[in-house]
C-alpha cells in the first residue's frame, strides 16, 4: 500500500466554541476554555452577500471553514479542486422535503429541491469562487471525515497540485432526529498540498492494521460534540495540527478501514 504524503497548507473550522482556527487551536491545546454556546450564523467571506443571507446552514458552515482554510494557505479557491464530505448532507432540507411530501407534495419548493442535493455545498462554493475544477461530494456515513481525507490525499498524489477538503454536518431537525443523533453544526476544512518546502505540517497516510484503536480528543466537550455531529470526528486531526509536534493518529475511514496518520512539523 502506497503512502500518501501531503502538506496541510490551510486549516479552517467553525462550530460551537470553535469559531475559527486560532480559537480552536487554543482550545485544543488546552490554553482556552471551550465555550459550548451556539456560535453566530457563519458569514463566509467568499460567498456573495445575497448567498450569505439565503444559503442553507450546510453551505454556510462548509464555506466558512473553506474560506478560512484558503486564506491561510493563500490559495486561489478558483484553482482548487474540491472535495466536500458529509454524513447526511442538508438534513434540514431532507426534513422539509419529507414533511412537505406528506402534506402538500405539489407545493414543494423548487429551490429547496435543488438545494437538497448532497453536492449543494460544493455547487454553491464552485459558483461563488468561479471554480471550474472538479468538485466531489462524498459520504461514508460516520466515517465521512476520514474517507474524505483519503480521497483528498489521493487527488493531491494524482495531480501533484493542492486541493480543498471540507467536512460538515448540521443538526437533525424534526422526526429525523429520532434516527440521526445530530444536535450541533460543525465544519472543518483543509487545503492539502504536495509535500513541498512551504510552511505547514506534513501528514502521511497509510492503511492501519486491522483492529487499530481510533483516536479521539480526550476531553468531555470533544466527546460530546463528536456524539452530536459525526464531522467532529476531525477534532483529533485538528488537535494534532494545533500541537504542531510529531504525532501518530488513527482515524476511521470506513467500518473496517482505519487510516494511520503521521504528523510531522
Amino acid at each position: 500500500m502506497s503512502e500518501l504524503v501531503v502538506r496541510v497548507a490551510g486549516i479552517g473550522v467553525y462550530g460551537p466554541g470553535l469559531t475559527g482556527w486560532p480559537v480552536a487551536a487554543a482550545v485544543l491545546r488546552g490554553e482556552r476554555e471551550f465555550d459550548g454556546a451556539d456560535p453566530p450564523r457563519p458569514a463566509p467571506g467568499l460567498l456573495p452577500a445575497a448567498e450569505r443571507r439565503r444559503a442553507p446552514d450546510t453551505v454556510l458552515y462548509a464555506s466558512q471553514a473553506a474560506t478560512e482554510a484558503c486564506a491561510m494557505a493563500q490559495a486561489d479557491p478558483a484553482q482548487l479542486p474540491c472535495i466536500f464530505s458529509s454524513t447526511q448532507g442538508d438534513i434540514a432540507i431532507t426534513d422539509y422535503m419529507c414533511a412537505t411530501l406528506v402534506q402538500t407534495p405539489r407545493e414543494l419548493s423548487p429551490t429547496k429541491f435543488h438545494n437538497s442535493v448532497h453536492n449543494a455545498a460544493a455547487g454553491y462554493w464552485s459558483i461563488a469562487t468561479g471554480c471550474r475544477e472538479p468538485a466531489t461530494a462524498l459520504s461514508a456515513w460516520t466515517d465521512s471525515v476520514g474517507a474524505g481525507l483519503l480521497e483528498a490525499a489521493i487527488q493531491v498524489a494524482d495531480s501533484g497540485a493542492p486541493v480543498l477538503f471540507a467536512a460538515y454536518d448540521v443538526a437533525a431537525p424534526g422526526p429525523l432526529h429520532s434516527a440521526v443523533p445530530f444536535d450541533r453544526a460543525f465544519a472543518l476544512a483543509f487545503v492539502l498540498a504536495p509535500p513541498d518546502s512551504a510552511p505547514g505540517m506534513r501528514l502521511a497516510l497509510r492503511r492501519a492494521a486491522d483492529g487499530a484503536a481510533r483516536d479521539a480528543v480526550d476531553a468531555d466537550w470533544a466527546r460530546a460534540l463528536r456524539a452530536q455531529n459525526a464531522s467532529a470526528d476531525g477534532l483529533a486531526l485538528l488537535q494534532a495540527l494545533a500541537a504542531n509536534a510529531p504525532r501518530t493518529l488513527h482515524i476511521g475511514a470506513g467500518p473496517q478501514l482505519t487510516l494511520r496518520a503521521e504528523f510531522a512539523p
Partner: protein
Amino acid sequence: MTAYTATSAAGRGSTAFHASLRQRRGGLRSNDFGSDPLPCWIGRVDGLEDEPVPGEFATIDCRNNRLAWLGLQQDGFLAAAREAIARYGADRVAVVLGTSTASIGATEEAYCRVDETGSFIPSYRDFLLHSPHSLVAFVQGLLGATGPAFTVATACSSSAKVFAQAERLIRLGWADAAIVGGVDTLCGSVLYGFNALQLVSDEPCRPFDVARRGISIGEAAGFALLERVAARADAPQLLGWGESSDAHHMSSPHPQGLGARLAIAGALERAGLAASAVDYVNMHGTATPANDAVEAVVVAETFPETTRASSTKGWTGHTLGAAGIVEAVACLVALDRGFMPGTLNCTAPDPACGPQFAIDNVERAPQIALSSSFGFGGNNAVLVFGRGGRA
C-alpha cells in the same frame, strides 16, 4: 472492466438492455408510482415490492437497496465480484458507488408514519437507513469487501465520477480492484422535486426533439468491476475520464456548455485521443429544453461528422444518480455487441444538433465510446471507453 451490468426499465441485466436497445423497445410507462401520481411517464423496475434484501440487512431494507440487490444478481456480476475479492483479498477491493436518492424513499415512508411524539416508529429508527451511505454500506457488507469505500453524491454525475475515483485508487496502490456503479430509485422527492422545477414532461421524454418537454424520471442499478488492464486484456477498457464544474448555476447548465467542454477535453487528453477518434457519444440528453440545447451545440462543435451521438434516456428515463453507470453500460454494450444505439422518441431533431446526432441505431462496431453526465451544481463527468485488446 472485467464485468458489468445494468438493470432499469429497459430490462434486468445487460443482455436484456441490449435487446431493448437493438429492438428499440423503450421501458417508460405512465406514472403509477405512489398514491397520487403526477401525470407523467416513468422508468420503473418491476418486482421490487416483492424482493426484499437478504435478512441480515433487514434494518436497511428499502427500495434502493432492493434494486441494488436485484442489479447485483444479473449478468453473473455477484460471482465476478466475489471472485475478485477471493483473488485479491477483501481489503484490496474498493466499493465506490454513486447515488442521488439513496434510501430517501425510506425516510419519506417514515414521515408518513411518525408517532404521537413526532418521532419515527421503531422500525424506522435505524440511523444508517436514513443516510446517503446506506447503498455502499449494503453492497460492501453483502460482498464482504473492506477496501476504501465511498458514496459519491454529485446528483446526476454521481455514478460517472466513481470511475475516476476508483481508477485513482487502483493506480495509486490503494486497491487492486473496485466495484463501481450506482443505484437510484423512484421516490416522492425526485418526482415532485423535478416537477416543482417544471422539468418533468407529461409525455415520454423526447431527447433532442425540437418539441421536447422535459425528463421522464427512471430508476436503475448498475455495476462494473474495474481491474488493471493486465487482469484481462481483452475486456473493454476505461481509457480516460474528465471532471469539471460549470461555476454557473445550481440547476441550469452553463449557456455555452463550458464545463461540459472542459470535462470532454480532460477525458480525451487523459485517454491520449483526439475527438476524431471517438466513434460513439452517449450524450447526457435528458430532454429538458436547456440541457439538450447546450449539449447539442457542444457535441456538434467538438466531434467530427463521422462520430455518432445519441441519448438512450428514451429507453430508461433519466435515472439521475444511476445515469452515469447505465450509460457507461450502454457504451460497453455498444463496444461488445458491435452497434451504436440511436435515440428513442425523437422525430424532429433540434436544429442545433449536428450531423453526429443519430435517431436510428447504427449497425457499425465502435472502437471508442464516450459518455457524458452532467449534474445539478454544475457537476460534470465524462468517461472514455475502448474495446479490449488495446495495449
